[in-house]
């Protein structure tokens, strides 16, 4: 990075760069088809992608990792089609990523500052991990700078932010009850920049690159849902795209992990599958070189791409089950009702006895005709 050739390459468009590498127009179209597939866009979009890539320029990317487990980075670097991703990643200049970069200490921070200065207002900020804000944010610092401060500083000059993973997007496990560090998602700290939430624990790698590709291709962020997630990947629920859906529709459910229904591949709803309320692309994009996804492996969806999925009741209890202990409410309710009912009954009975004591005896004198 940073060589004269590199600087030169950075100046020209993606299409030029591919052509310079001796790749034919056919190859470019194939690249566009792969990119369309990556962005979960319709194949009909290929010509538009081609036109866009002919003009796209190489952006600088700064990647900040906060209160996280590196699962998101792992997910990305182990993504299934490394060369297409690398083609995409080659189109960006990843100027700071403290897990992946060779530099460390002051040199690393210097790289970040340099990238920020050189690309002020144009660079892309990628964040993984939640941001602890309790007690002045002391629970997570990098080079003595709290995560909150660093985020605010870097976000200020960013063109857009991609919050990668459920922690950055919605707070994730750090934000789960009782949230001891006051963990927050990016969107609650930075409110004046376009933010894309690529949720998931971890998010699907191609979704990360798909969003990068979109930014690279169209120089803008993709269409988002009401939770700030790219619609192309989060537009439909796991349930809607699940190959086991016909079993749900027919009412055929596995009731334990080793029963007949489980062996026959029936719907996992009763085993706690959150697929119906989970929006992600697992069912179509799949994991591990497109091999499979949790439901295909026989495990119910945990709903990891949804906000606060840790606090939505047991992973193994059906979506229709309330998240709190209803039986207890029922028992206490009967007790309370019995006490209040007994009180109400006592009042009613005394009212009735009083009425009897005050009985008005009807006599013939009351039968005076009204005329």
């Amino acid at each position, binding site marked *: 990075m940073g060589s004269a050739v590199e600087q030169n390459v950075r100046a020209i468009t993606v299409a030029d760069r591919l052509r310079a590498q001796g790749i034919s127009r056919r190859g470019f179209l194939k690249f566009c088809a792969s990119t369309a597939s990556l962005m979960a866009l319709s194949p009909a979009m290929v010509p538009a992608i081609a036109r866009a890539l002919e003009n796209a320029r190489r952006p600088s990317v700064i990647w900040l990792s906060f209160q996280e487990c590196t699962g998101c980075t792992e997910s990305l670097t182990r993504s299934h089609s490394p060369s297409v991703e690398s083609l995409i990643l080659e189109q960006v200049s990843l100027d700071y990523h403290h897990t992946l970069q060779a530099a460390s200490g002051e040199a690393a921070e210097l790289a970040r500052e340099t990238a920020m200065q050189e690309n002020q207002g144009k660079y892309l900020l990628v964040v993984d991990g939640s941001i602890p804000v309790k007690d002045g944010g002391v629970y997570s610092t990098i080079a003595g700078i709290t995560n909150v401060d660093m985020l605010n500083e870097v976000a200020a000059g960013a063109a857009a932010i991609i919050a990668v993973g459920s922690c950055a997007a919605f707070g994730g496990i750090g934000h789960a009850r009782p949230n001891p560090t006051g963990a927050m998602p990016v969107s609650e700290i930075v409110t004046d920049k376009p933010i894309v939430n690529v949720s998931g624990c971890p998010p699907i790698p191609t979704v990360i690159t798909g969003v990068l590709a979109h930014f690279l291709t169209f120089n803008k962020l993709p269409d988002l849902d009401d939770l700030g997630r790219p619609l192309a990947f989060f537009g439909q629920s796991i349930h809607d795209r699940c190959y086991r859906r016909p079993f749900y529709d027919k009412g055929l459910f596995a009731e334990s992990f080793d029963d007949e229904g489980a062996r026959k591949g029936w719907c996992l709803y009763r085993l706690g599958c959150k697929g119906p309320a989970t929006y992600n692309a697992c069912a179509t994009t799949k994991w591990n070189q497109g091999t499979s996804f949790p439901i295909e492996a026989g495990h119910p969806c945990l709903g990891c791409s949804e906000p606060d999925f840790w606090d939505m009741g047991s992973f193994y209890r059906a979506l229709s089950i309330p998240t709190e202990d209803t039986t207890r409410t029922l028992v206490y309710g009967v007790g309370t009702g019995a006490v209040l009912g007994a009180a109400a009954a006592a009042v*009613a009975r005394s009212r*009735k006895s*009083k009425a009897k004591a*005050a009985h*008005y005896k009807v006599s*013939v004198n*009351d039968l*005076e005709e009204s005329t």
Partner: protein
Amino acid sequence: MSSSEDRAVNAFREQIDGPIASYLSSCVHCGLCAHACLFFTETEDPRYTPINKVEPLRRVWKSEYTFFGKLASMLGVAKKVTDDLLEEWEPLIYDACTLCGRCSMVCPVGNDISYMIRKTREGMVAAGYAPDGLKGATQRAVTIGSPMGVKFPALQVQIHNVERETGLTVPVDVHGADYMALLSSMEIMNFPEYIGALAKIFDKAGVSWTLCSEAFEATNSGMQIGSSDLEGELLQRVVDGAESLGVKYVISPECGHAYYALRWEGPNVLGKKYPFQVIHILELLDQLRLKGKLKVEDKVDEKLTFHDPCQIVRKGGVVEEPRSLLSLVASDFVEMEDAGVMNWCCGAGGGVSANERAQPLKLAAFKRKKSQLEALGAGTMVTACANCRINMEEGLEENNMQIEVIGLTETLADHLA
């Protein structure tokens, strides 16, 4: 306890019990009871929907016997029982209900609506809201001894006539007789044949019986107007008479509400069990039939049907007896539609016959019986209630229908072997 409203409310408070609370909690306003009530079916006036008639009672239950209703009345949003309400509801409760109990048989949630209307009348009469005709009848019953103003000398005249016609003695005030027979004033004035029939049948069967000069009137206007106090006063006379004569049984005559008042409400109104048993004349006759003591020599050849008096059949439980007895004398007996416990009221029970104001409505309600009879084509209708009988004679005449209405006991007596 001065205002009429207060008297009504207090009476409702006294009357409301578990069954009423369960009924009022259950009503879903499905409207099916309307179609069980001949006042609705013959007028199509939705105000006559049975459950609507208990509105005054319902308001007191809601605001005083329900936790949430009490909250509502504290907040001042509960509907109150007012004189205006009572006045508006009076015709619905007295003119448009014969307490026939048919609605109680069809309500899908199981509400015994006629029970509630009976209870509602307690509050109505306590507040002075009852029809003049019924007030007058009750006043006469309490002061004179009979709603029609019949005194014992009038009965004596009829007894003499009967004795002359039949050549039998009609026992009066016989101490130690097994059975004490009661009469309704309608029978005394309009159908004295009933007394002769009793004399003939009991003579043949060897039944030891008597009339009581102090307590011969069976009817109970107190029950019809809905006052337990007055009902009890009238019932006490019967109890006293029966006790003074030392009888084992008191026979309720062919009069619907008299049977219901004496048999089912009496002990509860008086607060103690009777020292005798109450038996309906049809029950006694059927017992005699079973013992072979009631035999007929010939049968009625004409096509004949039976009108079920509501208080005796549906609400009284005397269902099979009249049919067994009829099979004895009728060769061509036909049941009308809905016969038995689901039969339709004549339209004049529950005090309606004493209520002049209700006459047009009563005649309208008779259309139901008219259509039942027209579908049947029977020339004779037997019944076992003098009130039904008078009302149906009147209704048939009004409608120019040539059907003879006769009492079951007399019919049996006429064909006695």
